């Protein structure tokens, strides 16, 4: 059997019927994205078995649910990080961490307490009680506690949404490290485009209990037929490799499959390291000719592959193709008309800002 997470689950809720038919990659982070109340948390709870559903569920060759058998929650080798950390208030941090660890067979313990404690920076918190921790610390303990069950699948339900900005910034690097260092597949529910951009490898878009689209992040984000591209913060993700640093201007040249982009030198990234760049559609503009005499440094040739105007907002979304990499540009309808833009046309894209998200 091929390695994949196959989810085919239906559940009846008051407001909607959940119908999910998904095949997710066996590793990496799958983000389930959608507006509040679209059924993404329900889907996660059904996968965990916390809520009844009909259908089938198969995780990398292990059947968790079928017509013949349904594993109870505690029989599924998964871990779940809830929106609120939900630490056991009567146990110390250390005992919270070990709660799941001591309940799995020793031969299945692939992650050791020392490792998890070090990964999430919890050394100084072990003897405290949960009510003596900050929100961010609590969530870090909850993540470590979940990892210590050496899960075959990690489910995360908006783990950052209950935290303030500072705590979010504090935890995101830990999540990105888990992404890089662990082979555990993660299903991550969020309605934050920022978290989506930083973490996702694979993307599932949901609305009203149904799956609108699913696929690798780089394919789904630039699709003009999906609500994601109509968002104020519509963007694409580009994976690039740092090639050289320009110490005089604190800039670095990063190379991706369709050319080079100059970015502000990120800390601790020697040449050769891979970075993830987010390019917002509103930071991309289009010129018909090459104009190097201007402030924007990132100029690249591209072809218009799709155009979609919105009469209501007066804004148009242009999808561009740079060799292999798609880009989105958000322009006014007037600009599209003045420049006479049409599909198939060769243009120059000017990228005003590039955010390094990892």
């Amino acid at each position, binding site marked *: 059997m091929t390695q994949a997470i196959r989810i085919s689950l239906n559940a009846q809720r008051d407001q909607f019927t959940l119908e999910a038919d998904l095949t997710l990659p066996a590793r990496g982070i799958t983000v389930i994205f959608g507006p509040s109340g679209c059924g993404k948390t329900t889907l996660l709870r059904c996968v*965990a078995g*916390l809520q009844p559903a009909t259908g089938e569920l198969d995780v990398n060759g292990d059947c968790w649910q079928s017509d013949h058998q349904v594993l*109870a*929650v*505690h029989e599924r080798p*998964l*871990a*779940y990080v*809830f929106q*609120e950390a*939900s630490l*056991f*208030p*009567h146990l110390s941090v250390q005992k919270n961490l070990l*709660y*799941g660890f001591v*309940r*799995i067979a020793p031969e299945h313990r692939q992650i050791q307490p020392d490792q998890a404690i070090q990964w999430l920076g919890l050394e100084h918190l072990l003897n405290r009680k949960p009510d003596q921790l900050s929100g961010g610390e609590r969530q870090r303990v909850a993540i470590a*506690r*979940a990892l210590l*069950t050496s899960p075959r699948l990690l489910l995360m339900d908006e783990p950052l949404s209950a935290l303030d900005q500072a705590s979010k910034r504090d935890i995101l690097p830990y999540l990105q490290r888990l992404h890089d260092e662990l082979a555990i597949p993660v299903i991550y529910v969020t309605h934050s485009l920022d978290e989506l951009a930083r973490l996702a490898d694979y993307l599932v878009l949901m609305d009203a209990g149904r799956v609108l689209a699913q696929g690798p992040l780089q394919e789904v984000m630039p699709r003009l037929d999906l609500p994601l591209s109509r968002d104020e913060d519509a963007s694409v993700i580009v994976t690039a490799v740092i090639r050289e640093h320009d110490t005089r201007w604190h800039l670095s040249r990063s190379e991706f499959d369709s050319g080079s982009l100059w970015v502000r030198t990120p800390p601790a990234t020697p040449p050769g390291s891979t970075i993830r760049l987010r390019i917002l559609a509103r930071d991309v503009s289009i010129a018909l000719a090459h104009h190097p005499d201007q402030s924007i440094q990132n100029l690249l040739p591209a072809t218009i592959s799709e155009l979609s105007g919105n009469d209501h907002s007066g804004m148009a979304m242009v999808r561009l193709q740079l060799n292999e990499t798609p880009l989105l540009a958000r322009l006014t309808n007037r600009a599209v008309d003045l420049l006479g833009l049409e599909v198939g046309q060769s243009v120059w894209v000017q990228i005003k800002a590039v955010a390094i998200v990892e």
Partner: protein
Amino acid sequence: MNEHWQAIWLTLKLAGTTTALLLLLATPLAWWLARSRHWLSQPVAAIVSMPLVLPPTVLGFYLLLLLGPDGPVGALTQTLGLGTLPFTFGGLVVASVIYSLPFAVQPLQNAFAAVPSRMLEVAATLRASPRDRFLSIALPLARPGFLTAAVLSFAHTVGEFGVVLMIGGNIPGETKVLSVAIYDHVETLEYANAHWLSAGLVGFSFAVLLSLYLINGRVNGSAVRP
């Protein structure tokens, strides 16, 4: 004086036995009442609470009929060679358990209902079976409820009178508990003796309830109140 100590000892023995049995009985019942959405849970909750509103004499009367030689339970105990329960210490224990049941069930039910479902869900995702979740999460989180249930059951049993009189009578060393002894003293105009025991009970009740409030107040600011 010897008779007093006998009554005190008997009362403490009755209250202790009743409390121990009640905690064993009320824990699963309270858990079921707090967690189940079964249609029977409301009627059962009402039955458990009936001793709160019924006069103890009504309870004692029916228990007497039920446990007596002609009652169904009495017939059973006789067949088993146990004799009949009324006017024995055993009969008092049975009556006290029923009479004090709401005082054990209600604090426990409130405490269990206050255990967040989320905690039990988290424990389930951390591989704890239902029994494990009950023992490792629900019981410790409901601890203030256990203290309240134990103290209230004990104190309420010490203070019971009507049921004891109906089902236990007034046999020294067997069923003559404090409340009955005080009643006896008053009937026979031995006010000094009545004072001795009554004042003792007043002091005892105050001390018990005060310590309960103090401990629950310290364990948890919003602890279950008796």
